[in-house]
């Protein structure tokens, strides 16, 4: 099997996985009672009408009187036509709601990702270069601290300290702040910090342990002997090989964190991003929006796994396509 074919197969498989997950979501929601229908019945009853007729009318309006497979086909069709319906709880199209939320999510997740990818390996390699020194211990301690402290708890504490006691950061998120402004930096600094401490630990540990191997390798010794500056030596001979195994774990870990933590961090800091959108959609039983956001999250998760696989195959020539 050639590389192209292998990638094709993986992509196809990713599509299948997304389909399966969204199908399960669809079925779960289809089995749940629909609050809108109930409401119609109540309305009709209050007006002296016939509730069962109203229920029927409402079901027809929403296409719920059709057999499940027809609704399912409609649902699948709507996925790729991007006609994801109307969000009842926000009075706007689902796609618009998702885009708006994504706008806010991106504002903190981009700096977070960039910082994690750059700082993690740097600190890790630095730590390895100074292995078992106090600096290494501090870095290791920090890694464990960040990894172990629950993000939402850390967020609350920081907000209490810097928002309520010292009043250096605002405690409420202002959606009208321009993206590139001091105000936006101030209100995003804590969420980004909390997320970075949470994710940097793993990256740091991996790069520390990986680079420790290359540290004492022959080519490193040679480089040093040749008089290559330490910075250059580390950049070329330690960082680069470290990145290979690192990149394979990075994507997956970041994504897992993203899906789990973004919701909590958004709730704590009041950021109206994807996580909160999904959560609010769930508690207000906004079926269309729940489906839409699940779709987005599934897409992110599946694409992440796919990327991880592909990066792995590209970076590691030892992988045989046939074997997987």
């Amino acid at each position, binding site marked *: 099997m050639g590389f192209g074919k292998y990638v094709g197969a993986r992509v196809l498989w990713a599509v299948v996985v997304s389909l399966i997950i969204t199908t399960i979501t669809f079925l779960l929601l289809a089995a749940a009672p629909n609050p809108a229908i109930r409401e119609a019945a109540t309305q009709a009853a209050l007006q002296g009408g016939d509730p069962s007729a109203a229920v029927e009318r409402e079901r027809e309006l929403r296409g719920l009187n059709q057999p499940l497979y027809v609704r399912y086909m409609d649902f699948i069709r709507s996925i790729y036509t991007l006609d994801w319906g109307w969000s009842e709880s926000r*009075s706007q199209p689902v796609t618009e709601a998702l885009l708006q939320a994504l706008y806010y999510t991106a504002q903190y997740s981009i700096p977070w990702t960039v910082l994690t990818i750059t700082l993690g390996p740097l600190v890790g390699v630095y730590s390895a270069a100074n292995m078992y020194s106090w600096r290494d211990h501090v870095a290791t301690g920090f890694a464990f601290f960040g990894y172990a402290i629950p993000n939402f708890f850390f967020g609350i504490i920081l907000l209490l300290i810097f928002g309520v006691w010292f009043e250096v950061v605002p405690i409420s998120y202002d959606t009208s702040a321009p993206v590139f402004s001091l105000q936006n930096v101030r209100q995003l600094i804590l969420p980004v910090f909390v997320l970075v401490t949470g994710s940097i630990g793993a990256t740091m540990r991996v790069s520390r342990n990986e680079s420790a191997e290359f540290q004492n390798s022959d080519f490193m010794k040679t480089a040093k002997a040749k008089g290559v500056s330490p910075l250059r030596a580390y950049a070329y001979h330690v960082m680069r090989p470290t990145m290979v195994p690192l990149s394979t774990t990075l994507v997956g870990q970041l994504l897992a964190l993203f899906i789990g933590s973004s919701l909590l961090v958004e709730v704590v800091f009041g950021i109206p991003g994807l996580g909160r959108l999904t959560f609010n959609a769930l508690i207000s039983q906004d079926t269309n929006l729940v489906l839409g956001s699940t779709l987005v999250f599934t897409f992110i998760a599946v694409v992440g796994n796919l990327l991880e696989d592909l990066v792995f195959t590209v970076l590691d020539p030892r992988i045989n396509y046939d074997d997987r």
Partner: protein
Amino acid sequence: MLGIGGATALAGCSGNGGDGGDGETGNGTDGDDGTDGGDGEDSGTDTSTYATAAAASFTTLNPIYNDENGAGNAIARALDQGYTFNADNEYVPLLYDMSTEDGEVWTFEVREGLQFSDPYGEVTASDFVYLIQEVHQGGWASSVSATYWTGVEVEQTGEYEFQATLQSPQLLWPESYEPLLYPIPQDLLQPYVEEEDAEGLRQDEELLELQFSGNLGPYVLDEWQRDGGTQYSRNDDYYLQDADDLPDVFNEAPYFESAEIQVLGEQASRLGALETGEVDSAAIPPERVQEYQDNDEIYVNQIPQPYNEKLSVNMRDNGWTTGPGNMFRHIPFRQAMAAAIDKQSLIQGVFRDFAETHFTWQPRFSNFYPPEDNIPMFGVGDRYGSEYARGLAEDAFEQSEYEYGFDGETMVDPDGNQVQLSLYHSAGQETEQLMGEFIAQELGNNLGIDVSIEAIDGTRFDTEYYTTTDFPTPERNEEGEVTSVPDELVDTVDGEEVEWTSPTATNPGPRNITGNEDWDMEIVYGLNTFPRNPLTNAVFFDGATGSYNPVGYYPEFDAQTLFDNARQASSEEELADALVDLFVNIAEEQPYIMLAFPDSTVGYREGLEGPIENFSNGWNLPAWRYEQ
């Protein structure tokens, strides 16, 4: 305040801009923590913006479909409704004045000079009549106000005048908020009316963004950010500036250059915003009121409310799951429960004294509150305590055909097992949880009942337990009159045959028609007690005919006659007499175990003029301002 307004869609949105101006929230599932649905009023250190904080984002700003209090406030910034009530509870005409001779025929006089935005022109009587006849009464749109206009005949009698004829006289019709209308341009509605396109009407952008509001509100809506809230700028042409019939203070209203409502889900954020001056007002939780009273920059108003905290006991067949013979159906037993719960401790512990005791279905500030000598005050003083409650329970056991009794401290069923009951509260609502556990303790200590507390999602409780849509319906002829009632909807109550002619999800029929799941007691919902128009309470206490009777309560006093007397009253005195009588009986029968009226405690920035410690707070919102 939790789940206030609960399941009913009975109260209209008064559109009082202020906090707690009226009380209808969605379905009890509002907001993240929902611990206070109130929105505060805020005007920051910068006195040119009037900003407030809301706990939950708005579902819709479409005036025809909004049924949330918070969104009602957001709409009210940009769009006035027909009328309001001032601090003395007097009718104040905004868009129209209402008058009547007999309470049956009401004349609406629309104020002149009201303008929609272009191209819709002037607001005339025909806009209102069209809205009522084609949308509210049209049968296709399921608008929120639809129920209020059923059976009302509306007729345009002049360019600025129309008449409404009620089926039966109602002296307090405006007080019920039922004839409260938003101005909606006829031309905007027309295409949807012709197509009967409810979905299109619901999603219409002009309605959602209030783009037609013209000079009809103190501010103009600039932007509605779905998560962030709303932003407004001053409406320089606000029609009340030219109104002669209002206090002079309106002549230059509003006094702020702009306004905004910030949606801040976390209580801590709302309070923080108030402290820093980002917002000018926010609801204060009871345990922190004193702290803010001591703050020089903030003052706290304590505003009595008509929304109650009560314990529902299920008298239907899916209640009293512990054994045979539903004891809740016996008045002495309900009295015993009321007597077993210490109202003072509840108020002190949960509401930190910012609540009123609740003995009958009216708050103390109501004009129809009966003299306290006439009502039994269960749960305080002599009428609280184990011995007293047990005595009442023994009376109930005697009435029952089953042999319940006390085995030492515990209440036991005929088999000798302890009576075990479930108590539901909304998941994630801390106040409810506290109340629930307190009630469980009190019932355990004073009546020997084992109460298990269940947290449940409000919507789920509503659909599966509290209500049902699966009930038989009477047959109707073309005019909508009931021609025959199925046997399932006929039952004998207190020896009289009763028909359920218009069953609803919240009163689906006799006690054997129930929700899917069993439940014994709940505190998920608080209800409005309608102090301005207590007649509305007929929906709760009129037995078979009331539209809201999930607990299956049938009055053992002659409620029907009292309600009829009240309805036919030709003077306020007659009305008051009939109603006072009614409330004495309700205090006696405890259809719900009444507990408390929590006050709304709202903090404002020092210097803000306008807020009052009265249920009408916010009626004159456009005239609020900072001292010069």
